[in-house]
């Protein structure tokens, strides 16, 4: 259990990075996890195809919020093209913990929101990546 709650996850949960919203985001997307009610919104500032700023807001368990916090840190300075290529393995690697199927949904909600935003889609067609 201590594995599931590494200090780094608790730290990101209690001291979230890039928390809040952007005043004039170029990209903004939000979504719920209807099973547990987690909610994440991600705002991006994009300049010449490069993510120059990112914020997240929402509520939910430590896994969902920490993964959003880590993701926003990770993508600032990267190109949208690179952001679009981020896979779930990358997020799970950042979290660094083993997750069951239910908590996997929590872990990947931020990625789902980010990619839906980056692709400019109302529903990201990558649901199979959650499994």
């Amino acid at each position: 259990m201590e594995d599931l709650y590494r200090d780094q996850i608790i730290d990101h949960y209690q001291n979230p990075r890039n928390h809040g919203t952007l005043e004039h985001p170029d990209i903004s997307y939000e979504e719920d996890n209807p099973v547990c009610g987690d909610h994440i919104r991600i705002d991006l500032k994009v300049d010449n195809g490069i993510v120059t700023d990112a914020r997240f807001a929402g509520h939910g368990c430590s896994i969902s919020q920490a993964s959003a916090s880590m993701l926003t840190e990770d993508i600032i300075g990267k190109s949208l093209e690179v952001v679009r290529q981020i896979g779930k393995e990358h997020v799970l690697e950042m979290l660094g913990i083993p997750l069951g199927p239910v908590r996997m949904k929590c872990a990947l909600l931020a990625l789902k929101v980010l990619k839906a935003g980056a692709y400019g889609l109302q529903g990201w067609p990558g649901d199979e990546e959650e499994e």
Partner: protein
Amino acid sequence: MTSTLDVAKIRADFPILNRRVHDKPLVFLDSAASSQKPAVVIDAMDHYYRTSHANVHRGVHTLSEEATALYEGARRRIGKFINARSSREVIFTRNATESINLVAFTWGRANLRSGDEILLTESEHHSNIVPWQMLAKEVGAIVRYIPVDAQGYLDTSALDSMLTVKTKIVGIASMSNVLGTIMPIEEVTQRAHGVGALVLIDGAQGVPHLPTDVQAIGCDFLAFSGHKMCGPTGIGVLWGRRELLEAMPPFLGGGDMIRTVTYEGAEWNELPWKFEAGTPAIAESIGLGVAVDYLSALGMPAVRAHEREIIAYALDRLAEVPGLTLIGPDDPDRRGGVATFTLDDIHPHDLAAILDGEGIAIRAGHHCAMPLHRKLGLMASSRASFYIYSLPEEVDRLIEGLYKAKSIFKR
């Protein structure tokens, strides 16, 4: 703590309680979601499939007669358990949700008109809200909600002002699944009848934990599920007053619910089969009949007394934990075996995951009562719920688990 039940003996009846989870003895505190099953229930269903299975109400052969006798015998025992006047008033459904949908779909469509009102409480489970919203949308009726306070107590003065000649039915749970609040259903029934409204009791939480007598309550419908009261999943009950059920149109059409069928139309079977289209959940009904016998042998007043003791102990112990906020009635006389709380800034899903690591099963989330959570200003909560097999030592294990969660979150 002395208990009115011999809990050690009861625990020996439940094979699953010997399980270990994450290499620790299971502490199962999620019975409000679904209870565990005693061996007699599991064995009865197994025995039925091994010795007497055939379709009911069909054949003249021995197995079909045995299956029918077991199925109808279960109905009679369940009828007695809730003191129904006749077992014809006991309709088998899949669960309490389907029972409520049955009433909304058949009685509701036949009797509700535009502008009629359906009165619920703010603390209802989704299953006693959504079917009525669907009905209201279809016929132009209005759903209103009697307020409850932070402890879940019903605002009975609002009840009086909200009950009018427009009110056609009142839907209320005998016990809140979130707060554990025991509702004054006899009083509500009396007042509702005063304006000519019918009363549907959602007994999903109440029937497994409180003595329930439909004649004493005076209600018109009672819905409950088998799986929360030591029975299997997939079987539930709608009890209704006979004259109401007689007048209602059927729910699903098909075999068993008809008397005669021609190419032009059909005549309905008599009660209760009018509402039981298709092959029913025979084994599950038999299992629920045995579950009801099991609970009757313990005695429902003793079941309630045991749960009152354990919730009183749990409320005392939980109140000692710094940063813990209890939700629901302080008074164990008015609260079932349900302890709902929040702890510091720890999200209930994190808490449930940490407790799971200690072998402790609790429920985390909105417990199918999103409107109530929103009203209480909560996104989610944690719920520990107790039953006949719950021990004070399990409350102690829960408390230890909560301190472990606090240490992980360093608060």
